[in-house]
């Protein structure tokens, strides 16, 4: 398809993937509030809250860390991502293509696709823990990095197969179902937290802190060895969606916003999903520990313990509605790598990779580290867009829209990206520094290196 044909096709489908979103296609603010509130109450929330508790984070540090970290995330959406999106009105990929070139965007897309597959794999594991309950499936425990039973493998394969096939057939139906399920899931999370509080039998904040500390003590067989405190929680909350806000993936969302102030809508996602839902999920584990001493943070049984069938269905739906668009997106990324390939088969391949990853519970147990790594690798590309927008384009959208497309492979962008990310991954792997500390330094370093390298490129060209 020619570029002109592509532009016409994207405009007729109402998605404007290859051109700035026109005025008549802009959407009202309530769409964004609803979307963020729903999409951040996902399958991952069932894992993250309990993992905080197992890492020995005090209740006070969780509450304060999440309050501050989520605020910083909202400010990142509002003041870094939304202003550029509301002026340039391009998708991340289209915007990046104009700076970095098609070839480099394909590499970024591939990294995105692979990381998405593993994230979807963790969600398939989450769903399988709920599906396995009626089959008396032995649940994987925190020490299990490998599959712990044949039943678990069979259920993961079955869940993964359904998700992969549905994702391959298209996005629309699942997106509609996810929209329907979202308000219900948010309320189930809240109900789970309230019931868990009742099960904990606490009358006041002091009582809750005491029960919380006891749960940490039991879960760790003594005082916790983890060093996760306020700063860890804050940085994690800020950067678990780093790829979306400072990483500029949500340019694709806010290009439809009438005003940059719609960026505040992200607060619905942060304080519903990443505050209420995480704390509710952590309380569910604390209640489970109190009732039967089970420290295994497996979402299916945890939700079943507090609200029964509705909880089990919520875990399945949350995992499914998260994994599905993730696999779909990974499929699109893979498809972009191989010109002429079928979207169906590319998405099915992504689904197969995700299902294989789902067989290994390690991806779910290591979700905190994985999410930090995901932000560290992808977010710096947002710095390229940010620094280019303010230093090269001077905030002028016409300058970007009319610019001569970048060469296929902009080396200034490539090196600005891989140098800090490579150093960060090395330090995460060898020094054992937590991954959620790296998106910020990598983002800043990437932006500065981009300015230096692109300046040198210009001098050489002259």
């Amino acid at each position, binding site marked *: 398809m020619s570029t002109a044909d592509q532009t016409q096709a994207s405009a007729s489908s*109402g*998605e*404007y*993937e290859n051109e700035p979103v026109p005025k008549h*296609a802009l*959407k009202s603010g309530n*769409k*964004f509030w*609803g*979307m963020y509130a729903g*999409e*951040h109450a*996902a399958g*991952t*929330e069932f894992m*993250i809250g309990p993992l905080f508790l197992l890492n020995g984070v005090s209740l006070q540090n969780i509450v304060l860390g999440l309050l501050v970290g989520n605020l910083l995330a909202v400010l990142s959406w509002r003041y870094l991502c939304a202003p550029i999106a509301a002026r340039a009105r391009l*998708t*991340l*990929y289209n915007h990046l293509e104009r700076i970095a070139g098609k070839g480099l965007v394909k590499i970024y897309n591939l990294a995105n696709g692979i990381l*998405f597959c593993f*994230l*979807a794999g963790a*969600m398939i594991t989450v769903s399988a823990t709920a599906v396995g309950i009626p089959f008396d499936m032995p649940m994987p425990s925190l020490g299990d990095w490998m599959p712990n039973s044949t039943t678990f493998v069979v259920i993961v394969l079955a869940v993964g197969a359904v998700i992969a096939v549905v994702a391959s057939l298209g*996005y*629309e139906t699942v*997106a*509609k179902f996810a*929209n*329907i*399920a979202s*308000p*219900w899931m948010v*309320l*189930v999370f*809240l*109900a789970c937290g*309230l*019931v868990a*509080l*009742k099960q904990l039998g606490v009358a006041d904040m002091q009582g809750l802190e005491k029960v919380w500390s006891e749960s940490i003590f039991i879960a760790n067989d003594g005082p916790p060895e983890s060093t996760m405190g306020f700063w860890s929680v804050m940085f994690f909350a800020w950067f*678990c*969606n780093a790829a*979306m806000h400072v990483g500029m*993936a*949500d340019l*694709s*969302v806010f290009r*439809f916003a009438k005003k940059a102030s719609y960026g505040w809508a992200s607060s619905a*996602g942060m304080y519903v999903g*990443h505050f209420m839902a995480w704390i509710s999920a952590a309380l569910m584990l604390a209640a489970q520990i109190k009732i039967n001493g089970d420290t295994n943070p497996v979402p299916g049984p945890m939700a079943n313990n507090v*609200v*029964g*069938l*509705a909880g089990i*269905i919520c875990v399945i739906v949350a995992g499914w509605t*998260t994994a599905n*668009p*993730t696999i*779909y*997106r990974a499929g699109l990324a893979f498809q972009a790598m191989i010109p002429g390939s079928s979207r169906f088969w590319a998405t099915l391949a992504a689904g197969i990779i995700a299902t294989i990853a789902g067989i290994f519970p390690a991806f779910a147990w290591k979700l905190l580290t994985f999410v930090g790594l995901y932000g560290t690798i992808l977010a710096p590309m947002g710095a390229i867009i940010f620094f280019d927008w303010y230093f090269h384009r001077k905030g002028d959208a016409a300058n970007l829209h009319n610019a001569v497309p970048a060469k296929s492979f902009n080396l200034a962008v490539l090196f600005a990206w891989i140098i800090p990310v490579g150093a960060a991954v090395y330090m995460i792997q060898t020094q054992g520094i937590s991954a959620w500390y790296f998106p910020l330094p990598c983002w800043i370093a990437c932006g500065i290196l981009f300015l230096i390298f692109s300046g040198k490129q210009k001098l050489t060209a002259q």
Partner: protein
Amino acid sequence: MKTILNILSLIGLALTLIPSILLLTDSINSAQLTTLMTIGMVLWFVCRILRETLFKPTEVSTHAVEHDTPHTL
């Protein structure tokens, strides 16, 4: 019909949250909570899916804004 489905789906949502508050105040027990929440869940999904099927929204869905960026966390 549309109004009835809207009201029933809202009752479904209410039955999802209110039982947990009633449990907190010792007004119902755990078994009643699970039953009410299950009824709420069925009511919500059946009514919402029926509503979507029978009365297709004329406005473009948020699909366009969600397409590129699935939020997974």
